[in-house]
């Protein structure tokens, strides 16, 4: 490998202790490498450990075992190795859109005037310049997520982590925002790890699709489609069907594995 990987995870494990004292493994021996400037989608059903993985990559959660490197460093809480976009309602509701985008800049000690200018540029980039003075509750769900993307970009990190950012949006808005995100990925030469449970979304966006289940990567699927991708094309439809089969087989395999482990 000529370049160091943007994200490198080896043998990652995370065990949660539940209220009743039982331990539950959210992640078990997960290996993951994301090359620089790749767009990788992480696909998996709810509760498969996707969010836990992202929280560990952001330093919000400490791993129980294994090694994690983001941009070559061990993620630490409060030190940002990557920009993050969360699921809906993650904007600070008492701050206007502009002030939300300025937040990471303020935390980094950027001077107010410079922070303002940068934040305005980022809002322009996501097409929301005129909403700078609006409070989050005055914005639609799609607009809120645009602001969240602008805020994630304010870190100036080359890595972007997204946790089902468009999950709560209607179809049209989602396609729009997917296009915005792809544009930004290309123009800013970012590395993106995008978590979703939507197979079509994973296929629309990713160079690689990692199918997650049972706390590890079950399938690493390279997407052979060229960009821009047309979801109405035959090639896309065929690939979607193939991916559904991969996903189903992986899920079935995982279920068999689970049964075996219960019997054992």
């Amino acid at each position, binding site marked *: 490998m000529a370049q160091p990987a943007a994200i490198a995870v080896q043998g990652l494990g995370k065990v949660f202790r539940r209220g009743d004292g039982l331990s539950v493994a959210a992640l078990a021996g997960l290996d993951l490498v994301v090359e620089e400037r790749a767009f990788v989608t992480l696909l998996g059903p709810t509760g498969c450990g996707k969010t836990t993985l992202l*929280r560990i990559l952001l330093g919000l959660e400490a791993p129980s075992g294994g090694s994690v490197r983001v941009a070559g460093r061990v993620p630490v809480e409060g030190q940002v190795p990557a920009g993050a976009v969360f699921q809906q309602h993650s904007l600070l509701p008492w*701050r206007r859109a502009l002030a939300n985008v300025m*937040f990471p800049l303020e*935390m980094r000690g950027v001077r107010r005037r410079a922070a303002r200018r940068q934040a305005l540029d980022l809002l322009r980039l996501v097409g929301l310049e005129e909403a700078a003075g609006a409070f989050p509750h005055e914005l639609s769900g799609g607009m809120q997520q645009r602001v969240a993307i602008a805020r994630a970009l304010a870190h100036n990190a080359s890595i972007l982590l997204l946790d089902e950012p468009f999950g709560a949006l209607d179809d049209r808005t989602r396609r729009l925002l997917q296009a915005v995100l792809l544009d930004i990925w290309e123009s800013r030469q970012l590395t993106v790890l995008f978590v979703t449970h939507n197979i079509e979304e994973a296929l629309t966006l990713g160079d690689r699709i990692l199918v997650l289940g049972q706390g590890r990567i079950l399938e690493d699927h390279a997407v052979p489609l060229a960009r821009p991708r047309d979801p109405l094309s035959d090639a896309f439809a065929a690939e979607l069907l193939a991916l559904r089969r991969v996903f189903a087989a992986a899920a079935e395999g995982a279920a068999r594995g689970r049964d075996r482990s219960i019997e054992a």
Partner: protein
Amino acid sequence: MDTGRHPAATLLRRVGLGAIPFVLLLAVWHLASRSAGTLLPAIGEVGEVLAHPFREPPNLDSLPLATSALVSLLRVAFGFGAALVTAVPLGILVGCRHTARELFLPIVEMSRSISPVAWMPLTIILLGFSSLGSVLYGTRAWEYGLLDQVQLAIVAVIWWASFFPVFLNTMHGVAGVRRLFIEVALANGARRAALLRHVIVPAALPAIMVGIRLGVGRALMVIVAAEFFPGTRAGLGYFITTSHQVAQYEYALASVVVIGLVGLVVNLGLYAVESRVSHWQAKER
């Protein structure tokens, strides 16, 4: 809410509607004061006292009405101020820690049901008649007339009255800050110290403001009763006591009206501040 109207018209309507009970109250008062053998002073007599707030009351051993009100407000200000600077930091501290909440809950629940006035005899024994003036300026305190009237015993009672609403609301506000906001801030580069200023306090501010409004309300309620006790030579409560002693009830009623008006102004002001700091909360789920 009628949003279609002109704002001035809306304001006029609200003020007009709010005025109706006052008019009714005055009418009842007027009729009651005209009935035979009543001790209730007429509206005009009370109005006469209110119209001359700086006049020394002729038969009363008391400062003028305006000065009395000012003394009472000073006591409230210092007592409430003390509550604010103790209850907010403590509430934040206890709100952040689950163990601290469990530690303090029983004693707080016990303490907050004790009427502030119940402490009055004890605070007088403990603090005597020392005042802010006597603490700051010793025997020259009399030169600082108003500060000499701010007795520590009364300030302590007002502190007790307003501490718990502010403390409890701050605590609940802080404990209720959504985990997501904290994680978002951490993921956006906030250190632990910055969390307090940039997430916890702004997120809890609406709750803290509710506590402040309730705390001020309780302070205004308690001040008059606290001033009934010996050791005071001024204040609206003292004004009421002395006017009862010489059966000049128009003075007592005038001070009741003043307290009510002060409460009205303070509450409207605090509501305005509250809606400013918590506008985002009503629509937030």
